[in-house]
């Protein structure tokens, strides 16, 4: 009897510890948001938000804080990299899951796992050695542009490589849980494999694929180091994809050493991370909602 009491007491104690940890996570989440909001008050009280977001002059020494170049730079790099990554990774995911023999498949998935684990600085370092000369000597002349190679195009290529594993693994996962009967029924009607993929599988695996794309977007959007290393870090409105630019995370890392000295500059950079936080939050919640909505709508069981 006594022992039983001890056991159930232990059970309750652990439960309280768990609740405390969960609450700590919530407090952390709230503190993160409040901290960013509060620390960016300074810059927001001196300049209106729209002026910060839509002015293109960035010169902290003169008190000019325009985020437009970095915002457009981030947008361009992210969208451009997704334009490269989405078709390639969906097509290869379909190939991996539908055409590849299962013996090769597990090795290939191990490969993708390794690619997902490669740190972003390594991607950046590699891009400096391979992609920058490639853009300078091959792509530049091909499009008739003179470029140093440190440009938006290279950054987008690196980001695409970093987004591949995210989209591929989620797409393969959502294709592989579809029932085999679904495929057999459609193929027995005389359809080709691509028709099956196009008309049935893409729709049935849709929620997984879309949330994969959105998560890939999130990764590309918040990626810092690899982009900073190759984009050239010039805070101007980009005239073409072959010119150097700047992204929001790059802005923070690029001026982190000076950031301590001027409170206004510091506050401006914290405002940048607030923007990043809100956008990433939005896209993550969107991915979740889409996944749940579509899951209940497209059910093949």
């Amino acid at each position, binding site marked *: 009897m006594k022992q039983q009491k001890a056991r159930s007491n232990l059970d309750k104690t652990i439960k309280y510890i768990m609740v405390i940890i969960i609450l700590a996570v919530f407090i952390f989440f709230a503190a993160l948001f409040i901290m960013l909001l509060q620390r960016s008050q300074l810059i927001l009280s001196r300049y209106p938000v729209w002026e910060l977001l839509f002015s293109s002059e960035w010169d902290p020494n003169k008190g000019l804080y325009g985020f437009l170049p970095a915002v457009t730079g981030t947008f361009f790099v992210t969208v451009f990299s997704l334009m490269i990554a989405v*078709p*390639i990774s969906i097509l290869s995911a379909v190939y991996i899951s539908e055409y590849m023999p299962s013996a090769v498949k597990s090795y290939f998935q*191990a490969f993708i796992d390794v690619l997902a684990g*490669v740190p*972003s600085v*390594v991607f950046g*370092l590699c891009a400096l050695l391979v992609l920058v000369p490639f853009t300078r000597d091959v792509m530049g002349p091909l499009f008739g542009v003179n470029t140093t190679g440190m440009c938006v195009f290279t950054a987008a290529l690196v980001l695409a490589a970093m987004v591949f594993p995210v989209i591929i693994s989620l797409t393969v996962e959502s294709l592989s849980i579809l029932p085999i009967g679904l495929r057999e029924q459609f193929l027995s009607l005389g359809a*080709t494999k691509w028709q099956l*993929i196009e008309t049935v599988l893409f729709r049935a695996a849709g929620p997984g694929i879309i949330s994969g794309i959105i998560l890939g977007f999130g990764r590309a959007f918040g990626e810092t180091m690899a982009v900073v290393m190759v984009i050239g870090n010039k805070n101007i409105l980009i005239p073409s994809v072959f010119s150097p630019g700047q992204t929001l995370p790059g802005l923070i890392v690029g001026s982190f050493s000076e950031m301590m000295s001027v409170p206004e500059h510091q506050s401006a950079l914290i405002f940048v991370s607030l923007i990043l936080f809100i956008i990433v939050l939005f896209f993550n*919640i969107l991915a979740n909602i889409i996944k749940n909505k579509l899951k209940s709508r497209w059910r093949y069981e």
Partner: protein
Amino acid sequence: MNKYIKESIFRVLMIISVFIVIAFLVIIIGVNIVKGGIVLINEPAVIFTAPGPKYLLGGEGGILHAILGSILMVIPSTCIACAASYLIALFLQVDYIKNRFSNKLRVVFDVLWGIPSIIYGIFILNILIVTNRRGSLGAGIITLALLQMPVIVRYMDEALNSVPDGIRESAYSLGATRLETAFTTAKYALPGIIAGILIGMGRAMGDAASVIFTSGAGNSMPKGVSKSVSSLPVLIFQQANSFYPSVREHAYAASFVLIIIIIILNTISRICSKHFQKYTAGSDR
């Protein structure tokens, strides 16, 4: 268009895209290993020597401080994150709360996973500024623990989720408390749990953006919890931006070490999940 022609066109496109993905992987790993390997063969002492005072300005020295710094930061932070996320994952799985509520909690962890690492760095940096401290090993450990916790929670949760219900029910029917049941089910989920821990560790090992603000990123050997340290990714970032070719060469050596560590972690996670599969062999799922 004939459907068979379409089929073969798309098949070719798919094969091309698979090759593009493979090419990226081979280039990224190959370049680092070959180039870093060449640097290491020419001067193998780089790994074992501490940096001189002007190392990043082309001075003498090696990358030992970054290797030690990485290890000293990642291992304690993984331990902290593991303990916390194990409890959280059990809390999400075992019948402490209603299912509806735990699904909402999962969304929070998904969102935390998606937050760029630089924001974690800024957050801890802000705390450091408010409390008037400088970047240190301790702050780096806390940052990395926060960074990898959502990853580990997510993987552990998924692993626990795959345990057949029958095991939990039979534990309850023997009169086990919720905690004892939780430990029983956790044993079945060991492969997934270990894979999650190692993936989280890999993320912490390779992340530069969060640590560059909080660990001080100094150029000296780690001396204590409140002293500044450097880590491999931070060092690679600093070296790659250097004007001195000899320093830039060392970046490849550092990334060789880093990528080998990542591949080893990946392999261990695979071996572990194979090894611990014997616990799950009896499950009929």
